């Protein structure tokens, strides 16, 4: 039997840079086919070709063995190819049924809407989703919105379902639920294509896996008989060993936080009592379920938000409670924010500008009278090479065009090239692939070895456990317990959940 979807020799470039270079792909009906690769390997681009969004420069597309030309998403839907994008395409003030109706127009509006509500209920029931067709998208959680997207695509009659990094926005529990549902869909004869960079999902939930690297498919494997190690090696090209924390005695106390209280902009106090200290050459991990005050704690520590009460003391500078970001940075505080393009980079500005803004006030690139473009360019070029920021074709290119991992590397290049005394890192590896993640962790450990005091705030418990010397667990705005490495994962987890 012919494959449900077959892509052969697909080529696609963006502004002269190839994203896909003779990529091949094949998925059969009734299987969950994982498409694995690092950020920028071309997974999403290839699937956007299959969904009719990108016109390939070369290559052929076959559906059920018949060659097709897709001139737009409409064509793809007519061929019963449906894609759920990473960023959901839903109209937020509209209801679920209205959104689904918008994508699957059924003649008369009122009649169509009632009919649609009925179909959504049936479909949701079959999938085991609890979705009320009359609720507004605004009111739904991310996971619920994703279910709406899936229902929308299925009601359009999709037999080839493409899910682009569906678990990136979900909690572990939600992810398992989604992937289980996906398996049932495949059992009913749908060809499910699961785009991901998470190895665990591939080995646990996929039937076959295609590994992409550098715009090409490098291997097609049976997902059940492969190992995470082998997949990493294929996706990355080399073996990635996660960096290890060398044991070394910590130095003097660098930052001491005492009874800190911070409120959100709406007045709600989210940090109730944060007390901890971090010494030179030490990583202090703050574990906890997201939304327990971590964001506000980071904002207070980096000078973006003034605390209500409590104190922050820095070694050598005394009490710095409520000091501005400017002053704190002068005192040697560096920050890796969780929201890379919100707080870390100015997306519309060049790589050079984003790197140099870190030190421009120190007259490093000329006095206040004149900023020296040539020396900026030189310093930024050197840092891009030193910190291995890839995807920079032109130093003047907008930083928004960098992938997540490279954006993070650029931020780290800016923050670490000043030899910071204290580093505040918030979810530094969120959304990064294996290799970028290892690179970020290595940088943190190097900074630790160089004597920096590091506060590592992360929702990812494994990250906290593997890097930290000591671990504080944050629940409901408090540091509820402290552990010394090696900490018992179960014990830390219990504090995270029980105090929440």
């Amino acid at each position, binding site marked *: 039997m012919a494959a449900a979807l077959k892509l052969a020799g697909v080529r696609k470039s963006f502004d002269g840079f190839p994203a896909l270079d003779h990529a091949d792909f094949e998925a059969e009906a009734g299987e969950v086919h994982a498409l694995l690769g690092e950020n920028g390997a071309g997974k*999403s681009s290839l699937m956007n070709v299959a969904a009719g969004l990108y016109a390939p420069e070369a290559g052929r597309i076959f559906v059920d063995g018949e060659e097709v030309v897709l001139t737009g998403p409409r064509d793809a839907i007519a061929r019963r190819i449906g894609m759920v994008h990473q960023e959901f395409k839903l109209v937020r003030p509209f209801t679920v049924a209205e959104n689904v109706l918008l994508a699957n127009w059924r003649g008369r509006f009122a009649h169509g809407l009632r009919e649609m509500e009925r179909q959504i209920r049936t479909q949701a029931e079959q999938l085991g989703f609890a979705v009320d067709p009359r609720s507004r998208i605004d009111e739904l959680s991310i996971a619920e919105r994703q279910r709406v997207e899936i229902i929308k695509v299925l009601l359009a009659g999709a037999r080839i379902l493409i899910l682009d990094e569906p678990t990136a926005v979900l909690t572990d529990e939600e992810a398992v639920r989604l992937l289980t549902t996906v398996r049932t869909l495949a059992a009913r004869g749908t060809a499910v294509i699961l785009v991901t960079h998470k190895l665990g999902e591939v080995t646990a939930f996929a039937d076959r896996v295609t590994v992409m690297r550098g715009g090409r498919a490098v291997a097609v494997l049976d997902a059940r008989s492969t190992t995470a190690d082998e997949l990493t090696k294929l996706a990355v090209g080399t073996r990635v060993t996660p960096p290890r924390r060398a044991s070394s005695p910590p130095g003097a106390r660098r930052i001491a936080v005492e009874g800190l209280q911070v409120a959100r902009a709406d007045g709600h106090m989210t940090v109730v009592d944060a007390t901890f200290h971090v010494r030179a050459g030490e990583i202090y991990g703050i574990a906890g379920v997201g939304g327990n005050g971590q964001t506000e704690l980071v904002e207070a520590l980096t*000078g973006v938000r003034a605390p209500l009460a409590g104190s922050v003391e820095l070694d050598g500078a005394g009490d710095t409670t409520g000091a501005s970001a400017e002053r704190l940075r002068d005192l040697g505080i560096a920050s890796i924010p969780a929201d890379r393009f919100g707080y870390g980079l100015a997306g519309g*500005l060049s790589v050079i500008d984003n790197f140099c803004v870190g030190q421009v006030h120190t007259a490093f690139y000329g006095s206040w009278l*004149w900023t020296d473009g040539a020396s900026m360019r030189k310093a930024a070029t050197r840092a891009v090479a030193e910190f291995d920021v890839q995807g920079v074709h032109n130093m003047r290119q907008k930083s928004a065009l960098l*992938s997540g991992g490279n954006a993070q590397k650029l931020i780290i290049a800016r923050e670490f090239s000043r030899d910071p005394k204290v580093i505040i890192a918030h979810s530094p590896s969120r959304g990064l692939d294996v290799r970028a993640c290892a690179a970020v962790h290595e940088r943190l450990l190097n900074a630790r070895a160089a004597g920096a005091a590091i506060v590592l705030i992360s929702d990812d418990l494994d990250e906290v456990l593997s890097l930290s010397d000591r671990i504080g667990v944050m629940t409901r705005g408090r540091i509820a317990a402290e552990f010394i490495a090696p900490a018992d994962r179960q014990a830390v987890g219990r504090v995270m959940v029980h105090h929440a």
Partner: protein
Amino acid sequence: MLDQAASRRLLTTDAASQRSAGSLRVGRINLEVRQSIPLWLQALILGGAALLGIAVSAALLVAAGVSPKDLFDEFVVETFTDSGNFHSILFQAAPLIFVGVGAAVVFRIRFWNLGIEGQMIWGGIGATFVVLHTIGPPALRLPLMMLFAVLAGMAWVALPAWLRMRLGVNEIITTLLLNYVALNFLLHLLYGPWIDPKDAFPHSQQFHSFERLPEIGWGLSSALPIALLCTALAAWLVLFSRFGFYTKFVQDNDRMALAVGVPIKAVTFVCVLLSGALSALAGFVIATAQEGRLTQSFFEGYGFSGILIAFLARNNPIAAMIVAVLVAVLFVSGRSLQVFYQIPFAMVQLIQAIIVISVAASEFLIRHRLHWVH
């Protein structure tokens, strides 16, 4: 990186009539988001768009009964050969440069100062205040008038700036509405305490000769060199100084700017005050170089022109200066068209609008790349 570029939805248009999978496909136009664009290409696209706008405008004028030859004479030949025309253009250009550069420096940081006219009014009031109260000796009169004008303009814009930075009040509303407050205050002065005692008309008394900007030869007012000097200073500040580097971050991502220690409040405040000062100077030069007194309508139309100039110049002060001169050409030639061909002055505004629309539309080509796929 490519994923990023790709995630902004790309459109594909099929240019071939043959849509099936056959070999007859000619190809199609493909649209891509550009990663970066060289400066020369950007200039070429913008210049091309402006030319297209001018061509459409010329066609409209021809349709309205101006022969192509007259059009060329009026806009090109007269501008450069007729010294009277040339003078009136440079005369007209000075206040336009002030408002254009004033708008450019503040739009750079996304503070939409629509109160240019109000600040001009206060510039005029500040200068006239010095005249009516005979502050300082005659030799210092003009510098004092200039100083008072600048201070009044900055004070007038400081309120919306403070309201936005402190309370988050939208500056578009406040600056715009404060224009009406300024206008009514001006009318109050001119119909009341400042009414001309000689002829009882609602304008201030005539300024003395030492209260008027002197000429610098060839019949040119010193307003122009002052405008050029201010342009140079503004250009240095926003393009080459460290302050200018900071403005880029305030414009692109102010949350990030705050987090990396850019003094955004200071940057914002300085840009806004500078804009108020430059707008006030526009009012000052009209009162002291053109009218020789404070009148009730000296500011009219400059607010819109300032916004338009800054937009066409993409908030670059040097470009704003050049565009201001071109707008002055349009004003002056437009006036002679009005006189000799009975073309309404609305036509001038129409031409401005057409050029703005074509330049705005060309933004699409700056962001995207078109290419043919076979």
